[in-house]
C-alpha cells in the first residue's frame, strides 16, 4: 500500500468521492499555490469502499470553503497544526457562488455581457438546486 506522510501545517480533505479530487484541485486553484499538495486517488474507505484524499500544506485561510461545499458538502475538512488535527470544519451549501459554474442558457445576459461574473444562488437547499442570478435558469449537472 502506498504511504503518504503526515503534514505539519495545512489541511486534509477527506472522504472526497472517488475520482473527484482532480476536479476539486482545479476548482480550489491549488495549482496556483506554492506548497506541497498530495492527491490520493481511490484510497480504501470503510464507509464508501473507495475515496479520494487531498493533503495541502498551506494556510487554511487560503481555502475557499464555499467552493468546496458547493462541489461536495460531505467532504471532511481537517485543519492540521503541528502535525495534529486541531479542527474539523463542517461544510454547508453556500447561499451564493461566484464564477464557479457558468450559466449555459444562451438567452442569458451572461452569454454576451463582458466581464459579468457568473453568480448562482441556492434556490432549494433540500434538492441542492442553484439558479443563475440573472436569468434564474436552473443549473444542471454536466460541467461541475
Amino acid at each position, binding site marked *: 500500500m502506498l504511504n503518504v506522510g503526515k503534514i505539519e501545517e495545512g489541511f486534509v480533505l477527506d472522504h472526497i468521492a472517488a475520482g473527484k479530487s482532480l476536479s476539486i484541485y482545479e476548482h480550489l486553484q491549488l495549482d496556483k499555490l506554492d506548497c506541497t499538495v498530495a492527491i490520493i486517488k481511490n484510497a480504501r474507505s470503510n464507509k464508501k469502499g473507495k475515496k479520494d484524499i487531498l493533503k495541502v500544506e498551506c494556510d487554511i485561510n487560503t481555502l475557499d470553503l464555499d467552493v468546496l461545499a458547493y462541489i461536495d458538502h460531505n467532504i471532511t475538512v481537517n485543519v492540521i497544526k503541528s502535525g495534529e488535527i486541531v479542527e474539523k470544519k463542517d461544510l454547508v451549501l453556500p447561499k451564493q457562488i461566484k464564477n464557479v459554474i457558468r450559466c449555459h442558457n444562451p438567452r442569458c*445576459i451572461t452569454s454576451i*455581457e*463582458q466581464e459579468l461574473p457568473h453568480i448562482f444562488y441556492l434556490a432549494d437547499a433540500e434538492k441542492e438546486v442553484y439558479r443563475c*442570478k*440573472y436569468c*434564474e*435558469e436552473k443549473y444542471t449537472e454536466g460541467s461541475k
Partner: protein
Amino acid sequence: MRHLMSPLDFTTEELERLFDLANDIEQNPRKYDHACDGKILATCFYEPSTRTRLSFESAMTRLGGRIIGFSDAASSSASKGESVSDTIRIISCYSDICAMRHPKEGAPMVAAEKSGIPVINAGDGGHQHPTQTLTDLLTIRSMKGKLDNFTIGLCGDLKFGRTVHSLINALVRYQNIRFIFISPEELKVPDYITDMLREKNIPYEEVIRLEDVMPHLDILYMTRVQKERFFNEEDYVRLKDFYILDTVKMALAKKDMLVLHPLPRVNEISVEVDKDPRAAYFKQAKYGVYVRMALILTLLESAQ
C-alpha cells in the same frame, strides 16, 4: 433607490399602496399633470415592442415628464458593441428613470446593478415582464374590488407564456385563489409551477376543454395558442377551437366573470366578444398606463 425587476420585488403591502396610487390617478388625472415636470424617462428598447413602449411613454407624458430613448438595438450603441453596463451609466447621466426591454434574460438586472437611476424591467426575453403582471393585478383589483377569494382560469399556451407564470407567482401571495389551467397536453403549465402550488397547498386543476370549466370561473385569462407549438397539424386542428373564446362559450360563464388578455389578440378571442361587458382586455391596457404612472412616481420618489 428601488428598481423593478420582478413583480415579487414589492411586498403585497407595497403593491396595495401602488394600486391605491394608480386608482387615485385614474380618478383624479388632473392632479398628476405636472407630477414629473422636469423629469426624463429613458425608454431603452433593445427589441421592438409597440404597446409596452407606448404605454410607458404615455404614462410619463401624462405625468408631465419627457421621454428620450431608442426602440430597437440597431439604433442604439449596442450595435457598436457597447455593454449594457456602459449604456446604463451613460443613460443615468441623461435621464431620471429608465424602462428597459432586452432580448437577453437578466439584462435589466445588470443595468440596475450599475445604474444611478431607477431601472424598470420592461421585459427580458422569456424571463420576466413585471409591468404586465402589475397591470393584470391592478385590473383584477379595480374591477373585482379584491385580489383574493376567486377562481381564475388560465387558458392557452401555459408552457411558454411568461405572463401566465408571472401572474401565477404573484397571485399565490393572496388568500383563497383557485387555479384552473386550460391547455392542450403539449402546452401544460410547467412542473415547477404545479410543484410549487402543491407545496403551498393551493388548489388547482388541469383541463383540456374551456367549455367544461366556464361556469366556475370568476376570471378568465386568455393567451394565444400558436400553431407552431403543436407537434402535428392534426392535433392543432382538433384542439384549436377549444381555445377560441366566442359568444357561445361566454353564455356559459358567470354574469360577472372578467376576460383578460395580455394582448395582442389574434383569433383566440372572437371580435364579437368585445361588445360583452365582461371583456376587460382593452380596459386592461388602460390600467397598464395607470400602473406605470404609479410605478414611475413611486420609483422616482425612492431615488430622492
